[in-house]
């Protein structure tokens, strides 16, 4: 007889997350007027559903599989398991808990994790030290950054089987073939660890859902070219969360479908979600996860649209699920290598610069805001080059903010707002 409470307690932080998301969902439903910030209402409902099911599966005793945000979760649905996104837990809790997750960052820092590593893994590392998560296995690619390569071996030290798929550098045919084989090998390896045979037919169904989602994402992306932008700033934050937590799930399809409908209506009416759009900004890197409210503040106080961040412009091609397994895995490899951050980290920075310049022109951007995150060393040599390219080729400025996107103690939200406010004043 399974002790369901004991089983459920293998994912205590997911329970915390569910509680905070459910509360947020309820609050926004009650407080916000019907048309206001739909992304938060639809998004929290979808997240709630995904997390509830994960916890229910944990109660049933299914294996808990941790995965890196750069490992598309839809691939894990070839197993009966509870996928737990390592980075999503840290950053969702950072965004939703009133005091953030600093307590956990401090636990792992005190254990010796260097202060300059990425906060996205710190949370779950500390929670593992505190026995709040009991993983049966963790799967991750060897990218996108040094930080992942450096931090994930900690889990192996904690006797959790760590399964690695080696991600090559450069987007070439041979890379897709190599990484496709890596993905297949690692899924079989994971199967051995959790004592299950991978069911690739089931995985295909989840990939197909994601193929549909990608089409909708592309449609929304195109609509952002409109002036004013019909997509609310906060959509980007929820979309980032959806990408790493809900990919391959019906809830993900629901989120994007419902959002598309609302965005289309706004587009037809020529509406902006937060009053007058005065400045159109592109955030080529990440948003600030410890305070999503900044999205609203930008829209309402400054009149600044965030057209998109890194999680909202790296759209991938559909994966061919109709041919053989080799084609399927090659497509999966390509999607993984095109994943936000993974794409930029597995190639030279020239395509990233070219993309940004093109986006600036195509989307009529007035400026760029670059959040230079302490954990992201692979992006550490890029901002100045990008700033020069935008100035020379488009004639627009870029603000660089050095910060920790998941920890408010490094650069506080007040400092960030001050910087943006001063920057915005130079544009108006």
């Amino acid at each position, binding site marked *: 007889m399974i002790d369901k409470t004991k089983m459920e307690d293998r994912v205590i932080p997911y329970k915390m997350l569910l509680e905070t998301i459910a509360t947020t969902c309820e609050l926004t439903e009650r407080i916000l007027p019907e048309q206001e910030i739909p992304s938060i209402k639809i998004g929290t409902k979808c997240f709630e559903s995904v997390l509830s099911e994960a916890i229910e599966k944990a109660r049933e005793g299914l294996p808990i599989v941790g995965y890196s945000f750069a490992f598309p979760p839809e691939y894990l649905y070839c197993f009966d398991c509870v996928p737990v996104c390592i980075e999503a837990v840290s950053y969702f809790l950072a965004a939703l808990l009133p005091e953030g997750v600093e307590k956990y960052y401090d636990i792992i820092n005190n254990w010796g994790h*260097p202060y300059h590593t*990425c906060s996205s893994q710190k949370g779950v590392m500390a929670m593992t030290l505190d026995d709040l998560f009991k993983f049966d296995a963790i799967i991750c690619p060897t990218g996108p950054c040094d930080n992942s390569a450096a931090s994930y071996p900690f889990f192996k030290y904690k006797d959790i089987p760590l399964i690695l798929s080696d991600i090559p550098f450069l987007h070439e045919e041979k890379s897709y073939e190599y990484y496709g084989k890596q993905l297949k090998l690692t899924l079989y390896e994971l199967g051995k660890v959790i004592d299950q045979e991978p069911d690739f037919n089931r995985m295909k169904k989840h990939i197909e859902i994601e193929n549909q989602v990608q089409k909708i994402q592309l449609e929304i992306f195109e609509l952002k070219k409109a002036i004013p932008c019909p997509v609310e700033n906060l959509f980007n934050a929820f979309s980032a969360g959806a990408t790493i937590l809900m990919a391959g799930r019906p809830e993900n399809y629901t989120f994007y479908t419902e959002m598309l409908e609302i965005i289309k209506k706004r587009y037809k009416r020529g509406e902006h979600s937060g009053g007058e759009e005065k400045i159109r900004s592109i955030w080529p890197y990440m948003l600030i996860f410890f305070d999503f409210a900044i999205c609203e503040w930008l829209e309402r106080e400054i009149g600044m649209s965030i057209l998109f961040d890194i999680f909202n412009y790296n759209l991938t091609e559909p994966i061919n699920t109709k041919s053989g397994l080799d084609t399927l895995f090659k497509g999966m490899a390509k999607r993984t290598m095109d994943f936000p951050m993974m794409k930029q980290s597995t190639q030279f920075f020239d395509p990233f610069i070219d993309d940004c310049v093109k986006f600036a022109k195509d989307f009529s951007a007035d400026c760029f805001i670059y959040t230079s995150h302490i954990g992201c060393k692979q992006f*550490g*040599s890029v901002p*100045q080059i990008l700033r020069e390219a935008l100035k020379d080729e488009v004639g627009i400025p870029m603000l660089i903010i050095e910060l920790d996107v998941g920890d408010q103690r490094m650069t506080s939200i007040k400092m960030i707002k001050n910087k943006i406010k001063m920057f915005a004043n130079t544009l108006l």
Partner: protein
Amino acid sequence: MSLQNDPFLNISNSINNEYIKEWQASKKRVIGYYCTYIPEELLYAANLLPFRIRATGHEKTELGDILMVRFTCSFVRASLDLALRGGFDFLDGFLICNSCDHSRRMFEIFNMKVFNREGFKKKVPRFYFSVPHIITEEGFNWYWQEIIELKEELEMAYNIDITDSNLENSIKVHNENRRLLREIHRLRVLEKPKLSGAEALRISVVNSSVPKDITNQELHRIIYKLKESEGIKDLRKRIMFVGSIIDDLKFVNLIENSGALIVSDFLCFGTRNFLDDVQIGGNPLEQISKRVYHRISCPRMMDDHERRLKFLKNEIKTAKIDGVILQRINNCDLHGCDNMLFEHELKELEIPVLNIDREYVQADTTRLRTRIEAFLEMIK
């Protein structure tokens, strides 16, 4: 008999040197690289002198700081700074692999800002190859293929032909070089070590900046000189030094002047680079690739921490280590996290450990000295 004023070892204080100038005067080329995951034998076989990029003695990063944010490695920023000031203009080629996120980006930055800067006319070909982050059969096949392609690119860029015979000769020279370095290492771990950690570091740095056939001759001389010496007799704490790149004596001197002697290390300017040889026989390029790929790794290899720990444990026993100093350059995630695990693992074995962070350019000396002295006092 000290090596302190040895003219050959004084090369470690400079970037360019007379041997490089002579090499280039005879119409041969110099190729710069950052990381030891490169196949040195291949370059040497092509009459290309592999020169390991460093910024020894260069204490500025201002120009580098413009292009790299402050969260990046100060070693790479210092070397970029030096490059922007013309410090590496003597290079005839530039070879980069994805060793770490900081140095990897130098492939693009050097092209854009160093080799294409105003007034710099020389064409410097760049080469890139990727190294897997895990040690597997599939990974090796990938790496070997990359090296085959690199060979072809070198041949095309410099209009040369790299034959198996060239490679075999190069392997002999490099194996001999590593054998000599291992012999020096054995003299270092003796009860009365024949050389200090600072001297060992100088040897290692020079070794990456001078043609290997010349270095080998000099190493023979140095070994003879060391064997003749009495060895270091004063009682000092025997330290193993582990972590990020170090090519400057200041930090090593800080430790050794505090009452310690660094008798062994786990550094890329150190043991990591000479423990393994290229096997003779078979396809020489495959054998070269095997050595680089399968050798004792640095933390960029995600699945090899246990082997690194095993090496540490063996070396602690062999070299009769009293304590281990783990160090990392700030913002080096790879060494930072590897050191974090080492610290716990060594403490579990009751081996005294000090884990510190530093900048590439020696700074914060008083804090570091206090911590080092306190650590040494703590060791029984």
